[in-house]
């Protein structure tokens, strides 16, 4: 038998992959640089490490969901990302989809908990 923790960890990673994108997009109404996002997301319970976040931001930019601009006025030049109009549309659609999915999943899993636990009907 595979280890419960290990299997759970693997499946969780798969689940998280998509939610991180949505989480990042949700925070990008204002221009932000990568590292400022880390504590922002962490506060709300979405832990993401910088090594995942930075490539992701770049990918979202490449897909046209984010625009970017270098701010070189400060001592440390930083690349700021912000949702593009296209990214806004995609985010809105994703958010609605997520909410309805969330409701469906909730009702599915409530059903399971409400039923008999040994699986006999």
């Amino acid at each position: 038998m595979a280890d419960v923790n290990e299997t759970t960890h693997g499946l969780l990673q798969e689940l998280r992959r998509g939610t991180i994108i949505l989480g990042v997009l949700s925070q990008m109404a204002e221009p932000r640089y990568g590292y400022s996002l880390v504590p922002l997301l962490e506060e709300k319970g979405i832990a993401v490490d910088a090594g995942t976040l930075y490539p992701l931001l770049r990918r979202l930019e490449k897909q046209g969901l984010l625009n970017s601009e270098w701010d070189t006025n400060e001592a440390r030049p930083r690349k700021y990302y912000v949702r593009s109009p296209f990214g806004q549309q995609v985010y809105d659609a994703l958010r609605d989809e997520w909410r309805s999915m969330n409701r469906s999943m909730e009702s599915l899993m409530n059903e399971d908990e409400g039923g008999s636990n040994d699986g006999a009907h």
Partner: protein
Amino acid sequence: MELISRYIYAVTRRLPEKQRADIEQELRGLIEDMLEVRLEQGETKEEAADAVLRELGEPRALAARYGGGTRYLIGPELFPIYLSILRISAAATAIALSVSFFIRFLTSPALIDELFADFGMSLLGGAFQIFTWVTLTFAFLEYAVAKEGKPLRQGKGGKKPWSPADLPPVPAERKDIKRCDAVAGIIFTVLFLVVCTVQTDALGIYFLSGEQRGIVPFFEQSVIQSFLPLIWLLALLAIGRDSLKLIKRTWTWQLAVVHLLVNAAALGLFALMLQDGAVWNAHFLEGLVQYGMVTPGSDGYASAESTWQLVTSRFFLFLVIIVLVDTITVLYKAWRPAPPVKQRQA
């Protein structure tokens, strides 16, 4: 901070050149931000740098995340076929070289040491040749497939959305290409290649008993070797064709056309090689005399002479017939109607 620079270099050197400068600057900013947090918490510079780089993880993994899509020399789609072609070709080469070694040993047993060294060298050389060419061929296939952006096994279909009607029919048994047929084709090609490249003088009449041991070869090795580039080209085409058969595993009209084109190319090459008699061993009859098989002026000599002339003049015709038979077989296999598949009544 030398460690930081080394880390950034280790990441960016794995990235496409165009993105390097931008990612480098961004990554440096990130690391400085992360360091700052740790320094404020009272860590020393060394501790902080070590912790931050550990947090970011192995440079290779980080670069891979930046890289996006994975690129292959030979992708998972083609790799199993690549491996089996490699194995088959290697085996065929080894067999051909062993046979060649054995023939040379029979004709000149005294040279065993020299022959054995030569055998080892040609095994090594052959292995490299096979590996190089098969890999190059498959790398090209992979490149073509990746460029097209869809796996090779899928049929054509262009940009149209997929519909169930696109599903290929279950191949009827008679239209199946047997795996061993395609494998035999590859082995034959490799044998042909090895013989042409290494030892055409192994094809001939053997004299293994008596005082003199030796072979009277049919062909003039130097003439055949002048055709080697074309022979190699043809062999690669043929191996490519058989690989395609291993992939498709069923006769389609496209595959039949490829097959016939390669046949035509082979026939063209043979015609070119045989057009003047230079490819035949001009001293064949003298050789027979030398080994005492016939004596000049005898009836035996006359009949040997006429047989030799008949064979050399009709050899091309013989090849044409073989290719024709193969062509008709393929046409039949590819175009005959598939037998009705037994169906359960719904």
